[in-house]
């Protein structure tokens, strides 16, 4: 037998074995294991000599073939047994099944070719048919819209982040002094505590310093009639 075929011409070890069986005109149901194993191994060897890499699957089948061969050579102790199992059976079934799929691919190939003779078209772009779903019901009044808007504003309030970073506004003693001067111009007399509408450390410190400075400069007079009484700030006359 000529061994001029390359291993990658086969789809796998089963394909190769089928080829060898056909080549030697063997009946697939009565494989001459000894003969076919020799051919199979010779083939593998020839590929190795050509420095072709052989997939492990080919070697797996080679070992299976050798196993079957040895089983056939060994005397069967249970000759009496009615249902003597043929060690080739499993392999034959596998070959038959594989051969069936191989045959089916021929039909598939024909169908593939036939299908390529007809054409379809790409789907049309139907984006423009997508309806804009804003429907306006006729019983909506202007009030509903206003309500909706107010609800929206409320939602917006709620959606404010819980912690925000605000750029610090610098509060200086002189600016507070200016403020206090203005207040006193209008009111003439004011409770000390009223001078601290904002409770922040910078504000309190700046205001307190401003009051002290103004008192020192005699711009205002600080009075407290009794202990724990309200402290009042008055313009100097």
């Amino acid at each position: 037998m000529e061994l001029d075929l390359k291993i990658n011409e086969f789809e796998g070890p089963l394909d190769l074995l089928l080829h060898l069986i056909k080549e030697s005109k063997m009946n697939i149901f009565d494989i001459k294991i000894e003969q076919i194993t020799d051919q199979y191994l010779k083939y593998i060897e020839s590929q190795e000599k050509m420095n072709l890499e052989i997939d492990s699957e080919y070697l797996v089948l080679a070992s299976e073939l050798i196993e079957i061969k040895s089983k056939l050579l060994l005397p069967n102790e249970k000759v009496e047994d009615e249902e003597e199992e043929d060690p080739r059976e499993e392999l034959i079934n596998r070959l038959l099944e594989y051969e069936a799929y191989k045959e089916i691919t021929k039909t598939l190939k024909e169908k593939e070719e036939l299908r390529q003779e007809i054409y379809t078209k790409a789907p049309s772009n139907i984006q423009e048919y997508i309806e804009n779903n804003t429907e306006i019901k006729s019983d909506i009044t202007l009030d509903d819209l206003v309500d909706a808007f107010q609800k929206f504003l409320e939602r917006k309030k709620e959606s404010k982040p819980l912690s925000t970073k605000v750029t610090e506004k610098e509060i200086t003693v002189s600016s507070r002094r200016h403020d206090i001067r203005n207040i006193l111009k209008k009111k003439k007399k004011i409770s000390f505590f009223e001078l601290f509408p904002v409770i922040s450390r910078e504000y309190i410190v700046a205001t307190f310093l401003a009051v002290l400075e103004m008192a020192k400069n005699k711009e205002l007079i600080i009075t407290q009639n009794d202990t724990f009484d309200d402290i009042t700030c008055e313009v100097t006359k």
Partner: protein
Amino acid sequence: MNKLAILEGLLFVVGEEGLTFDQIKDVLEINEDESKNLVKELKSRYEEDDRGLRIDFLGNRFKITTKFEHKEYYQKLIENPTTNFLSQAALETLAIIAYNEPVTRIQVDKLRGVASSQMIRKLVAKGFIKEVGRSDMPGRPILYETTSEFLDYFGLPNIEALPDMSNFIKEAEKEDKEETDLYTSKYKENEVSS
């Protein structure tokens, strides 16, 4: 409005994606019988000689296609007709999956006698097969199934249209068969008497 005309337009719009029978029923808001008749009617009108298109049923979907009788004229339009066919390995793998679906990679490997993971990945990428869940076998391997694209690619209306597998399996000589029949019948007899 004429439903036949609407169906015709629908089939044009969807093109190669096609319409399933249920889609036709839903979109046109008609019952099963009416849609069946509608499709049949449109199909028969297209079969006239003076029409260039045809309603085909491919991969479980109705599609408007050209007629293969006119293929030579379409092929004239193409400057370099590049016929791209699947490899033997791809065909084998697809055949094994189609006849055994849903199937795991290991099962395919076993039937082919070679490792198939790369081929399976390729076929998934081409849209011919898809993952459909996991098997209960140890390791819960992925199960694969062929897609509507697979059927369309081979011009098959549905999976049942695949050729009968039994026609492709070689049968042993008659002698062998009778022998096994004898064995099985004998076995049955024994079973009854015991």
